[in-house]
């Protein structure tokens, strides 16, 4: 895609579990993941625990080396770049984790924490660092003089603001949020999401927003990718994925989410999906979801459906939608 800021192509990663002799096993954590991200866009990445969404984020950032595939940042190969260039490219993509407090260094002041990426990249001196930290604190809704304090003096929501400030200090184009609001209470979560959306508009940022909570993902995303057992099973415009889901797993996920309106949904209306997700150590043959799928066909147990376009910009990996 010509106007893609980021193009992820066929990323895969297999982890080898420690074991004895013949019991040594491995897990395909992410398989053949491809997507693009346009400037100013938010791609939501949703799935249940163990689906590989956080691993995929780490592969995109090159925090983990992939076994296969590549990451193109404005047409430049991010992972294959020479050391110096990779260092420069790395500035352009940053990440915010779930547990802000533990992602900040407890022995550094907030100001030093925020400026740490500048120091590591060898940009500017102490004066510039202080100034950058003060400006960013104001940008994320804290007081500039908070930079003298230590992370433990702040609440969970405030720590997440600090982590966001640190992610922005190198003026990135892309920020990855990995369950960044999942540990926060409802009222604080809304504050942080509002901040994240405001910053996107002001700074023209592109986001990859990872969460297990489809409600949150929909609220912030332009497009949504749904993962199941290491693979993207559906990707498309947020409205289409939520209103007209193609993949039976996406449908299962949507039907299981309680709606906060007792007139429309009570416990008996919740969708119940057969079984539990298989262990990634022993994934089913064929389509990974076939063992739980209400629409399974004989071929689903044998062949793996490819992610293929069904409607404009909307793709699913399911034989129900495969062209004959």
């Amino acid at each position, binding site marked *: 895609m010509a106007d893609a800021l980021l193009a992820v192509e066929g990323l895969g990663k297999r982890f080898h579990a420690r074991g004895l002799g013949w019991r040594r096993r491995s897990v395909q954590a992410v398989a053949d993941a491809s997507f693009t991200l346009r400037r100013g866009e938010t791609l939501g990445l949703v799935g249940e625990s163990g689906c590989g969404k956080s691993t995929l984020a780490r592969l995109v950032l090159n925090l983990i080396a992939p076994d296969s595939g590549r990451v193109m940042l404005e047409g430049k190969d991010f992972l294959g770049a020479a050391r110096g260039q990779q260092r420069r490219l790395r500035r352009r993509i940053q990440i915010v984790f779930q547990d802000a407090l533990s992602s900040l260094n407890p022995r550094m002041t907030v100001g030093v924490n925020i400026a740490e990426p500048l120091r590591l990249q060898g940009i500017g001196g102490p004066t510039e660092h202080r100034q950058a930290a003060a400006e960013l604190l104001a940008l994320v809704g804290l007081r500039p003089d908070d930079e003298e304090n230590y992370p433990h003096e702040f609440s969970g929501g405030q720590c997440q603001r600090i982590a966001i400030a640190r992610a922005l200090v190198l003026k990135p184009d892309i920020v990855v949020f990995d369950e960044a609001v999942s540990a926060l209470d409802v009222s604080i979560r809304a504050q942080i*999401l509002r901040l994240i959306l405001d910053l996107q508009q002001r700074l023209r940022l592109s986001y990859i927003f990872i969460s*297990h909570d489809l409600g949150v993902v929909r609220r912030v995303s332009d497009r949504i990718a749904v993962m199941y057992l290491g693979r993207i099973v559906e990707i498309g415009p947020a409205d289409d994925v939520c209103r007209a889901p193609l993949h039976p797993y996406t449908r299962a996920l949507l039907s299981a989410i309680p*709606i906060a309106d*007792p007139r429309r949904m009570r416990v008996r209306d919740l969708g119940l*999906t057969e079984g539990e997700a298989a262990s990634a150590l022993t994934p089913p043959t064929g389509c990974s979801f076939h063992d739980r799928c209400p629409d399974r066909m004989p071929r689903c147990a044998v062949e793996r459906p490819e992610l293929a376009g069904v409607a404009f910009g909307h793709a699913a990996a399911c034989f129900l939608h495969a062209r004959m």
Partner: protein
Amino acid sequence: MSDDVVLDVRNLRTRFGPRLGGLVAVDGVSFALRRGRTTALVGESGSGKSATALSVLGLIDPPGEVVGGEVLYRGRDLRHADEREIRRVRGARIGIVFQDPLSSLNPALPIGSQIAETILAHEAIGRAEAMARAVRLLERVGVADAPRRAADYPHHFSGGMRQRVLIAAAIACRPEIIIADEPTTALDVTVQAKILRLLYDLQQEMAASMLLITHDLGVVAAMADDVLVMYAGQVVEQADVDTLFHQPRHPYTRALLACMMGVEDDRAVPLTPIAGSPPDLRDPPPGCRFAPRCPAAEAACSAWAPVALRLTDNHVIACRRATEALVDG
């Protein structure tokens, strides 16, 4: 008090020990559990919802203690019952399901034996009979191949399956009341749906009352008949589930509902967060505890604590402004 009230909690007050700042975590909470109905206790972290459940069960860690109020079960105040009497009730007449099944289960004991122990602690039956009943309970909660799996240890089960095991233990003595504290919070949403359905089906079967503690308004809407909204240790609004979601009166309830992120709301729906954060209960604000964050607050709100007002049989609010609005028109 009507006949169908199974548990009547009145003006409960609980103070934590000095290590937790000696704060009053539960401050004047009253509610009644009615037969066959589910009451949800909803609020954010630190609102006192779990502390309320632990207080009811007599499980507050000393030196923290329940310092006031009554917990009336069958006309007896459990607060003044001796330890033996409490033990007879807790786990048998009142079944308990906590959030984290791994820390509620003994890692060194097969799950069948753990459920059997619960039964043996409360009933004068033989070991073999207790084991047989444990296996039937595991079958009932959906553990496949229960006779064999009863010999497995907790770590052999997935999170969802462990929660089923815990539920089996909770219902082992056919309780009149089930207290479930964030029973699905750690679970994936497809697993959550099944656990909620199981809890509901069991409650119906046994005509039990349920006290469901959760921070998730979606879960409340799906499960509750009656709802209590807690903020900073106090109940701010109490209503039947339909009223709470469709005619909420307290500004905090309204704000909480506005913060909900449903799968039906897309990017175009503006986010309307509540400003600020909940108060530090070691030093609670004077007057209404929500006043510092409340869009409707005026000076008087911070001067005097609001008086709870009963609007209808099943709708109580503690808010001066909402009360004024009703009087004015």
